[in-house]
């Protein structure tokens, strides 16, 4: 035997080993720097199957910030405390297919804390379902923050429309504040979508417009009519919608979308997942009142406005909008008084939504009153006037006439 043969054999072995080590070393850190072997496996094994079954979800995930940061499928899909019932055995992994904020908050706790204090959380759910589904603790917590908006009865109109309308209609939007068995509230994917988990999508006006649309809360239509919306239509493609939230500047978003004004931390200002931090009025209510943190919230919003507009301009917009709020309140109050008077005098029954006049009165504040107020704050002139005040006037005349007829009928019937 020559020593040379042994030497060559060992050199060959070493060459193979070094090749293997180099291949392993060339793998992206996100793939191998994981807390345990199961997570490493999840970086590729899940996609290997699902790209054949649901290609789009894998593709969407691969384009996401989560993927570039080395987040694996298992990071989001691993069952959290309280999700024991949803835990399923899935090809060697223990996962939950039902993702709630309990999964998101593992990494985004502060964001969850902001969200859960917002009206997007429990108040949004309670607007349809009342306190049903909320634990006593959740209801108490949210009611303290939003007195009167959580411990309330289920929506009377929705009840009359029936469960199918609630399930496929109301719940689609109001589930943004859905309570879960794991104790969390909300649905992060409503705005960020599921596997894309996108900040850019959440910043798109259309994302907010999924729910903030139509005659009862026509924010997207108002935005599209406003100068902001026109600029977005023209220059939206030039914006850096994916910019990191904490370092977002007007260089990234020189045209605002809904999120820019209501949530983003523009030019160093605090980013928030509680839009209420910048809202000074309860515009959705029949009679709009100032929010408890009116001054602070208005200041917060004005600071954001000030990144693009001068102070006199901002003050003028606010002054004019507040005048619209006051006048709309007066008009709505008049209609409410009229219907209340009819009810008090026994002209109308005790149950709501039984007579055509109930619906005219409801539309007056729910459609036209809200539209007029939102239009005033969001630069939607047509919505203040034709879709707002004109309709308010028209419906008040209709109400007066209907009330007269009803009273006449009522006295005739006596």
């Amino acid at each position, binding site marked *: 035997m*020559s020593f040379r043969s*042994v030497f*060559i054999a060992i050199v*060959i072995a070493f060459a193979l080993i070094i090749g293997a080590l180099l291949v392993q070393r060339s793998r992206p850190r996100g793939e191998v720097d994981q807390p345990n*072997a199961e997570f490493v496996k999840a970086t590729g094994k899940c996609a*290997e199957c699902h790209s054949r079954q649901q290609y789009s979800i894998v593709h969407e995930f691969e384009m996401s910030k989560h993927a570039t940061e080395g987040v694996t499928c298992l990071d989001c899909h691993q069952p959290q405390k309280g999700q024991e019932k949803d835990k399923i055995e899935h090809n*060697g992994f223990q996962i939950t297919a039902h993702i709630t904020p309990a999964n998101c908050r593992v990494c985004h706790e502060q964001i969850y804390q902001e969200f859960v204090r917002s009206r997007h959380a429990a108040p949004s759910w309670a607007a349809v379902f009342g306190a049903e589904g909320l634990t006593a603790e959740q209801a108490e917590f949210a009611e303290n923050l939003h007195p009167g908006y959580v411990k309330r009865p289920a929506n009377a109109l929705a009840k009359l429309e029936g469960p199918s309308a609630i399930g496929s209609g109301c719940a689609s939007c109001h589930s943004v504040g859905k309570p879960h068995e794991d104790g969390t509230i909300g649905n992060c994917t409503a705005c960020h979508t599921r596997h894309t988990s996108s900040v850019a999508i959440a910043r798109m006006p259309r994302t907010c417009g999924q729910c903030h649309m139509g005659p009862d809360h026509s924010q997207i239509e108002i935005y599209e009519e406003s100068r902001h919306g026109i600029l977005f239509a023209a220059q939206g493609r030039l914006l850096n919608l994916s910019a990191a939230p904490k370092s977002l500047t007007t260089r990234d978003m020189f045209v605002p979308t809904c999120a820019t004004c209501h949530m983003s931390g523009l030019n160093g200002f605090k980013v928030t997942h509680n839009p209420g931090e910048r809202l000074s009025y309860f515009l959705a209510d029949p009679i709009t009142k100032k929010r408890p943190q009116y001054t602070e919230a208005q200041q917060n919003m004005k600071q954001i406005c000030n990144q693009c507009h001068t102070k006199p301009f901002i003050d003028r917009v606010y002054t004019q909008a507040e005048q619209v709020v006051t006048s709309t309140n007066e008009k709505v109050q008049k209609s409410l008084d009229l219907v209340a008077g009819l009810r008090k005098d026994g002209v109308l029954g005790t149950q709501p939504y039984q007579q055509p006049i109930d619906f005219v009165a409801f539309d007056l504040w729910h459609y036209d009153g809200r539209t007029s107020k939102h239009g005033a704050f969001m630069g939607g002139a047509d919505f203040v006037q034709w879709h707002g005040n004109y309709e308010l006037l028209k419906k008040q005349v209709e109400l007066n006439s209907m009330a007269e007829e009803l009273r006449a009928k009522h006295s005739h019937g006596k």
Partner: protein
Amino acid sequence: MENETRNQWAGAHDLWLEVFLIFNFACLTGDILLAHSENSFRNRAEYIPLWFSGAAAVLLVIGLASRLRSQSLARWKWIGYGVGWISIGVGIAGVGFHLESGFFYEHTLKSLTYAAPFAAPLAYVGLGCLLLMNRLVPFPTREWARWVVLFTLGGFAGNFGLSLSDHAVNGFFRWTEWIPVFSCALAVGFLLMLFAGEESPTFSKLCALVLVLQIVVGTTGFALHALADLHGPSKNFEQNVIHGAPPFAPMLLPNLAILGLLGLLALDRVAKQAHART
């Protein structure tokens, strides 16, 4: 009679090779059952190697029995040719199917890592070729022994890739996962030199030592895989076996070591015969 049987098996490495092949096809039946259960036999074609392995083992037993009883080689040969060629076909088709699970869509190292193990079906090609070789190459000859060494070398080269890609799925999270890669590389190096013509007794002994090392590594691997499955993420042991560390995969090393040792013994026998003639 007993002596006659004993004589029939003594030094008959070709018969032992046949037993080795039957054992391998039988083991592959169970191995495929586990491996394709991971995919829940989603593709109907995944049943082909399962049924084929079982049938091949039975047919080869029949062929071997007929050779031993009647001393007639014809049936043994034709069964072997048939099973051998089908085995090669199953193996080649298997590589295609395995790569189709991801690699054909995205030609990246990652997709190769997480696709079904592309080298695994090559086991059928190897077994099929061995069946054909055992019938086409006369025994006992140096050529026969060298073919066995070559197939062992191929097996270790394949297992080098397999243990590399299998453990890459875990990102070599534990350092112990590198052991089979290192030991297969060592086997490839030594067997390559043996095949290249370094057949001196001392080098052959070194090769035997390297092969014994594979047996140690393989059985240790079996224990480690079984332990990993006992502590797997699922409460169900069966689920951990199917989706976790394949317990029988490390036994491929002792399996190949036995094949290599058969080749070494045959080489030794031929060398001794040649020495006796001179």
